[in-house]
């Protein structure tokens, strides 16, 4: 049985844990604000780029560009999973990793190979433990910038064009709001023409195929850039709510333990009093 002093020590340790989680929450909150403003900046560009790409590649013959044509036989599939290096952010990394793992499991019979191209140490650790086929891992990314994104885009395009993979999926956490993040799992390469876009008969300068040629790599790197930033923002939001939960759980725990502590203390006092009274009674009897 826990003695009074044990309980007191426990309360102290939970209190200091709470201080840490509260601080982490506040740090995440300020990081989230910064990430959100960065996200705002690129979001306009990414959405416009997506719209424009949709309009431009609409009604393009599939053979206009190798990244547009869907392959007849899809045997080898690559999943690009975007997560983070650090944990303590609730289900953030697990959700993305689970998504990739489940996809691989469900389609084990359909495809020859399901590879994972991932960002973030946590996802790497998770998938390594489960013996997933990891094609490349990016960890310790200091800052998401154009250089990094271009390298990734080039590598992905290379993996597709060389026939190493026949289809590439992109999975990241979409930042819907500070309290809501969703895992997105989309087809990425070959680029699909959206159905609900109207065809516009542009005058093109130079001809349309040339434009598509310069547009597509740009589109791919923008999309990667965007998903990395979305994921980063979501990470901070997820950590913030995880830490908020932890802080309130600590508070609850402390309240409960204080109750136990007081009860125990009172019990002790009562016992002592009983002893004294009992002793006095015994003395009076003689």
């Amino acid at each position, binding site marked *: 049985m826990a003695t009074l002093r044990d309980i007191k020590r426990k309360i102290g340790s939970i209190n200091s844990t709470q201080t840490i989680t509260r601080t982490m929450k506040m740090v995440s909150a300020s990081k989230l604000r910064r990430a959100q403003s960065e996200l705002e900046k690129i979001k*306009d560009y990414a959405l416009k780029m997506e719209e424009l790409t949709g309009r*431009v590649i609409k009604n393009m013959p599939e053979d206009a560009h190798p990244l547009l044509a869907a392959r007849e036989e899809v045997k080898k599939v690559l999943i690009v999973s975007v997560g983070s290096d650090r944990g303590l952010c609730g289900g953030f990394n697990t959700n993305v990793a689970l998504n990739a793992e489940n996809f691989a499991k469900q389609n084990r019979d359909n495809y020859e190979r399901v590879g994972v191209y991932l960002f973030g140490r946590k996802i790497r650790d998770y998938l390594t433990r489960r013996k997933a086929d990891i094609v490349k891992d990016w960890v310790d990314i200091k800052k998401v910038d154009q250089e990094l994104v271009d390298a990734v885009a080039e590598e992905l395009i290379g993996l597709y064009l060389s026939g190493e993979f026949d289809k590439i999926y992109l999975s990241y956490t979409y930042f819907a709001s500070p309290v809501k993040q969703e895992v997105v799992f989309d087809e990425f390469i070959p680029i699909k023409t959206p159905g609900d876009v109207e065809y*516009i008969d542009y*005058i093109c300068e130079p001809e349309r195929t040339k434009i598509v040629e310069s547009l597509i790599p740009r589109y791919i790197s923008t999309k990667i850039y965007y998903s990395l930033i979305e994921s980063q923002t979501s990470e901070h939001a997820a950590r913030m709510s995880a830490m908020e939960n932890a802080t309130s759980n600590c508070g609850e725990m402390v309240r409960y333990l204080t109750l136990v502590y007081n009860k125990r203390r009172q019990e002790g006092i009562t016992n002592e009093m009983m002893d004294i009274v009992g002793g006095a009674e015994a003395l009076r009897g003689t």
Partner: protein
Amino acid sequence: MLNLEIITPEKTVVKDEVDMLEATGAEGEFGIMPGHTQFLTTLGIGEIRYTKNGATTHIASSAGLAEVVDDKVTILVDTAESAKDIDIERAKKAMERAEAMLKSIPFDHTEYRMYELALLRAIARIGVASKKL
């Protein structure tokens, strides 16, 4: 009126109603006025000019795309700076550096193209900045 938007990954540089727009396309300069047909082009490194109520604004831009649909002009470029944001000293230094590098490395070197682009960007910036007044 044309509805003009110039967007870079950094921010939306311009979102405005303008009377006329001129820019450098893949096959030379072009101008857009209201009622222009649907038009799509790649943009080279150069200058984007637009006129609103008689006043002309100059913007130095790098490569990208421009789309015109129903008097809506969307320009997606990697960078775009208006004259007042340009550090002319820095641009001049960048130009000198690029010129020096271009002289020192062979034509078929992989970095040659990179410095060529840097030089073009610097020239565009200086061109725009000198029209500040």
